[in-house]
């Protein structure tokens, strides 16, 4: 790559960073109350919320890790990336109830909804907050690492320097503008990902001539070797299941589709929507944006397979480099958009998980331990300092503890599901879900998540988090069935019937 190209990529990426910063600074003017700072509650229309939801759901893993997995194991992971219907499903299941909760009390965080549903039960709020915090930190560290390494690989810059420049700026605008700035910058970053996706999708057809050619190349290429690196191809790569155990493909249908409703980055966006009747439009906008991003990941992987299979590029030593190898082959316009899109994916998810972690530490956990702030201003000030602190610590942690970040990388989506399903999905769909059941479900979820992190093994090839989610739901429902129902106030009763 020439110096001129590198300079243009840096310029393009840093222009995106600058626009994000300006949006964040502008958004600060819209933040007047704790409810707006922590939740952006009831402030936005479906287009902004839709783009922001897609950007927050599609992390750097979606654009870097997924094409890598598709390149090395075939199509199974496409079930995850083509799960665009999940948004409509999530809003059908829980959209009106989550939004309605914001009408019966002060809702600016997930902990507030837990309080309203379970009579301010501190144990439930505390356990849920710890599990969600674990998932958030895992995601946050992975985004910082991916974003920093992107420029380390490209320019040879120190990851610490890059990390502090990119994620330092992100931490500043997130801390000062809270969820309002977070949501608007994510919407902008989502737009960058969609535009990049459209460009790469068109270029895929130009380069390969279409999917038929890719199928033919992958089915017949055999094994290609260059230096020490070999890549074996075969027709089974291209069937629906790929070459992983098929139970993994099964999990990658159920977990992303149903799991979307349990992701904090989707749940919090349900109450950020101004008018709940716009929820179907939100499903459409988020779904369409996700379709482009999902197809983007698919064509990148197929493009890389085609280029390696036809000998146009060498087999990849690291599968996760598929997107960069493909962009580098396409040339300047693709490089500009691909690098910016990966950075946008990392930044949007990072800002989302930074505000979520900040809310948990500054708002939900203190109130779970009985600490209340005297004024909204004081609470927002504490949150700003907390977000800033978490941002700096996360940058240091993610760039100095590679092994721990890799272990935490297995957390994330499944862990967040296991922390939210007992409280919100079972809790809001069923009046019979009581405090005892949900507490036991969350406690088991926390223990099993940590045990799995420590190396606990599960039967079969199924990803471990499927077992944890199943156990926590079974425990929640079973204990609730055999213990007394909680008292439910009139307003909550109205929400549950909605």
């Amino acid at each position, binding site marked *: 790559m020439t110096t001129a190209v590198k300079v243009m990529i840096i310029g393009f990426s840093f222009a995106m960073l600058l626009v994000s910063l300006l949006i964040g600074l502008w958004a600060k003017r819209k933040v007047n109350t704790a409810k707006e700072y922590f939740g952006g509650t009831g402030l936005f229309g479906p287009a902004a919320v839709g783009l922001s939801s897609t950007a927050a759901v599609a992390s750097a893993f979606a654009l870097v890790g997924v094409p890598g997995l598709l390149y090395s194991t075939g*199509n199974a992971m496409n*079930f995850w990336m*083509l799960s*665009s*219907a999940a948004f*409509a*499903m999530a*809003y*059908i*299941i829980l959209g009106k*109830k989550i939004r309605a909760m914001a*009408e019966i009390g002060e809702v600016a965080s997930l902990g507030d909804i837990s309080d309203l549903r379970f009579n301010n039960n501190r144990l439930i709020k505390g356990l849920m907050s710890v599990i969600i915090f674990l998932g958030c930190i895992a995601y946050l560290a992975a985004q910082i690492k991916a974003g920093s390494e992107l420029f380390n690989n490209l320019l040879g810059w120190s990851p610490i320097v890059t990390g502090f420049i990119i994620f330092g700026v992100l931490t500043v605008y997130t801390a000062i503008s809270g969820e309002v700035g977070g949501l608007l910058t994510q919407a902008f970053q989502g737009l960058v990902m969609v535009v990049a996706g459209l460009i790469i999708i068109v270029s895929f057809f130009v380069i390969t001539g*279409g*999917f*038929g*050619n890719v*199928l*033919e190349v992958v*089915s*017949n290429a055999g094994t290609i070797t260059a230096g020490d690196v070999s890549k074996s191809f*075969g*027709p089974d790569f*291209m*069937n*629906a*299941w790929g070459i992983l*155990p098929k*139970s993994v493909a*099964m*999990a990658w*249908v*159920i977990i992303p*589709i*149903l799991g979307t*409703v349990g992701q904090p980055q989707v749940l919090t966006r349900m109450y950020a929507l101004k008018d709940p*009747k716009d*929820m*179907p*439009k939100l499903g*459409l906008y988020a*779904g369409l944006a996700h379709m482009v991003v999902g197809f983007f990941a698919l064509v990148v992987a197929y493009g890389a397979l085609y280029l390696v299979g036809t000998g146009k590029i060498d087999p990849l030593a690291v599968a996760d480099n598929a997107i960069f190898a493909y962009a580098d082959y396409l040339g300047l316009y693709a490089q500009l958009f691909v690098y910016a899109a990966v950075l946008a994916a990392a930044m949007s998810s990072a800002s989302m998980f930074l505000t979520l972690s900040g809310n948990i530490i500054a708002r939900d956990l203190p109130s779970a331990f009985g600490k209340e702030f005297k004024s909204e201003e004081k609470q927002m000030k504490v949150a700003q300092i907390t977000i800033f602190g978490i941002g700096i610590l996360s940058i240091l942690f993610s760039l100095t503890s590679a092994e721990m970040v890799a272990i935490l990388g297995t957390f994330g989506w499944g862990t967040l599901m296991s922390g939210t399903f007992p409280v919100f999905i*079972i809790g809001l*769909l069923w*009046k*019979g879900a009581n405090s005892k059941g949900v507490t036991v479900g969350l406690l088991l979820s926390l223990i099993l998540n940590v045990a799995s992190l420590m190396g606990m093994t599960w*039967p*079969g*090839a199924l990803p471990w988090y*499927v077992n944890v*989610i*199943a156990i926590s*739901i079974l425990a*929640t*429902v*079973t204990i609730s*069935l055999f213990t007394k129902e909680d008292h439910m106030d*009139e*307003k909550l009763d*109205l929400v549950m019937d*909605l």
Partner: protein
Amino acid sequence: MDIQGKRTGIIVTIALLWGAISVLGWYEMYMPGLYLGVLLMFLHMVLGVSVNHKVSKKFLIFPLIPWAVVWVISFYLSNMHANIFTGVMPNFTILGFHPSFSWTVLLYWIGGMLTLTWGFILYKDEWLSSSEWDEFKRKVELIDQGQKGGR
């Protein structure tokens, strides 16, 4: 369709389905697992779409049931064509895709989006009408006023 007395039964079924899907996954019984997965999602949506324990028949007829059928067919055809062409290049393609994967693209991805998202927009009032939302807000306001008056 009234689900007032069936809600607990549906939630118990959901919990059992999670358990069953996990066990099926341990033993690589992925096709029954996928079919049960569709049922699991369907039941969640039935609970989500209900208003005052009533589930709209219109919303069941479209989009919920067609969505479930489209996905079951998608998984069945994907598996059938994967088995037919195991280890060999297929002798035909659908839009250039391996026939097995084409059903993922056409039915799981596009079909799923078209049924659920389009149906949701088309029948949004069956999920939550303006009058139901306004009535909910009015009742909340009445309770709030009652609580203030009682102080």
